[in-house]
């Protein structure tokens, strides 16, 4: 969708701000340029909407060289968000959001409807439409800055350190919101930052730059696991090389996919047989469609074994269930605060697909503590649980 072909930029002088950059960005990809200050990230980005012209090489969008497009039209089809936010103080929020639609001559009521629709995306009330930027907090202003870039529904959005000026908590909130938004909108996003946490959190692909050149590119987990050289390793930071692992894992990777189960409509004696045969103290209860119902444990058995009731009548419900795809970090926190021993993992139909036990979590914690040593020993590769 967006191609850099041997792009070089030289400002006056001989120093190359961007040096022979070749890169293919796919449709819908969230790509993050990262590197120390002055490495050419902003220059790279501004060459795309031609706020800066290339010195050599070419950039094309959907196969068409941007040099052949009308400058003004090109920019109206590319969303642009900058660190300084750049909302117009003399325009209301609505006017700010619908500026590009206005330039594109949308009728007034369509512009207003669009602004309302966009505000809903970030869960801000309609009453903000007629306020001025100054009346909003920094975080709200940058939300509007993002909406403004989305207004005319451009397929490509450029963001230059958009969250850089926000306080850490607001920044994190906006990052999460934006990642969520991006998932539903399927935009191609080119994002610039110097914050590695931000890059790893948001990117589909990270491009690490140094002095105008690409040092390494790849998915966050690839880069964290296989830093190309000392510069990258240092830039990522030792902590993240290890820590990033559990936070990138999801519950499926560590769950036991074959927990002992009993049917809801069995009677208790049959169930006890299964429990004993498998030498476990707890069994998960499901119905015929494998839908999760609850569990029975030693305590249930002791209390009811004489009555020979149906399992469905005596089961207990799990205090916590987790959905497929939940990040491991969230689960660790839950287990630590709630002291539960087991957590069932379910899919979107509530069907049981596995179970997380205290033991499997202990493995993860163990690995993340000792994993670092593995790295230094050069055995490197997959930290985490097999």
């Amino acid at each position, binding site marked *: 969708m967006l191609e850099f072909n041997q792009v070089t930029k030289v400002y006056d002088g001989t120093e190359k701000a961007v040096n022979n950059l070749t890169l293919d960005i796919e449709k819908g990809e969230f790509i993050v340029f990262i590197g120390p200050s002055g490495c050419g990230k902003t220059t790279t980005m501004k060459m795309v*909407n031609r*706020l800066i012209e290339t010195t050599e090489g070419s950039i094309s969008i959907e196969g068409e060289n941007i040099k052949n497009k009308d400058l*003004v*039209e*090109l*920019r*109206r089809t590319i969303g*642009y968000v*900058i*660190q*300084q*936010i*750049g*909302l*117009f*103080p*003399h325009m209301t929020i609505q006017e700010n959001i619908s*500026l*590009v639609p206005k*330039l594109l001559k949308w009728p007034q009521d369509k512009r207003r409807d669009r602004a309302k629709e966009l505000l809903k995306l970030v869960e801000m009330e309609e009453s903000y439409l007629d306020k*001025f*930027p*100054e009346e909003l907090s*920094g975080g709200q*202003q940058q939300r509007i800055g993002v909406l*403004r870039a989305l207004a005319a529904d451009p397929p490509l959005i*450029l963001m230059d350190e958009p969250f850089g*000026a926000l306080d850490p908590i607001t920044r994190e909130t906006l990052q999460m919101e934006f990642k969520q938004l991006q998932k539903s909108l399927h935009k191609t996003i080119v994002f610039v930052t110097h914050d590695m946490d931000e890059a790893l959190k948001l990117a589909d692909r990270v491009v690490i730059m140094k002095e105008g050149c690409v040092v390494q590119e790849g998915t966050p987990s690839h880069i964290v696991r296989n830093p190309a050289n000392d510069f990258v390793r240092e830039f990522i930071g030792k902590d993240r090389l290890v820590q990033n692992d559990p936070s990138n894992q999801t519950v499926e990777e560590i769950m036991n996919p074959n927990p002992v189960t009993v049917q809801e409509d069995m009677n208790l004696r049959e169930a006890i047989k299964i429990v004993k045969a498998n030498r476990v103290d707890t069994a998960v209860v499901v119905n015929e469609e494998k839908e999760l119902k609850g569990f029975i444990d030693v305590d249930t058995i002791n209390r009811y074994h004489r009555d020979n009731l149906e399992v469905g009548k005596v089961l207990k419900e799990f205090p916590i269930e987790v959905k497929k795809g939940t990040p491991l970090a969230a689960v660790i926190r839950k287990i630590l605060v709630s002291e539960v021993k087991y957590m069932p993992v379910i899919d979107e139909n509530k069907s049981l697909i596995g179970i997380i036990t205290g033991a499997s979590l202990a493995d993860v914690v163990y690995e993340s503590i000792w994993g670092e040593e593995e790295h230094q020993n050069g055995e490197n590769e997959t930290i985490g649980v097999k």
Partner: protein
Amino acid sequence: MSAYGVLFAALVAIPLGIFIARYRKLSPWVFSLANVIQTIPALAMLAVLMLVMGLGANTVVFSLFLYSILPILRNTYTGITNVDHSMLESGRGMGMTRNQLLRMVELPLALSVILGGIRTAMVIAIGITTIGTFIGAGGLGDIIIRGTNAANGAAIIMAGAIPTAMMAIIADILLGGLEKVLSTSKKKPDVSQKAA
């Protein structure tokens, strides 16, 4: 009468200010010319113009015009060149043409500063108009002169001078108020500076 001179000056100086804000290399030349005009004493200016244009209101209006150019020009130039860089960048990045940028961003944001220039010009103008009486332009200056010629003309002088002063003050307050209204409802770009 004062208002005419300032109005004509605004019609010339604002576009000129915009022009030199865009082509900054020209600005030193234009400013030194405007400065020269400004330093000519009012009476001398009136006298010279009188020689060329004769007596009457037109001469006064013309000299007001000349005097008003510098403050309006200077403020227009400053107002526009001081518009925050991030405003321009986001405007351009969103695909505004050069003229749209001027109309929708630069001028609105510079408006209160430009008005400040007009206000200064107006106050100067009222003073000069009063002097204009010497070349027979009429107005409150006439009353003052009549007072200085009368035997005990203090009261008559006051009758001319007080309204003159009042006019200057009222014009100043009115324009100052307008400037304030505009700069509070159309907020100044300050957010970005906090960020940077």
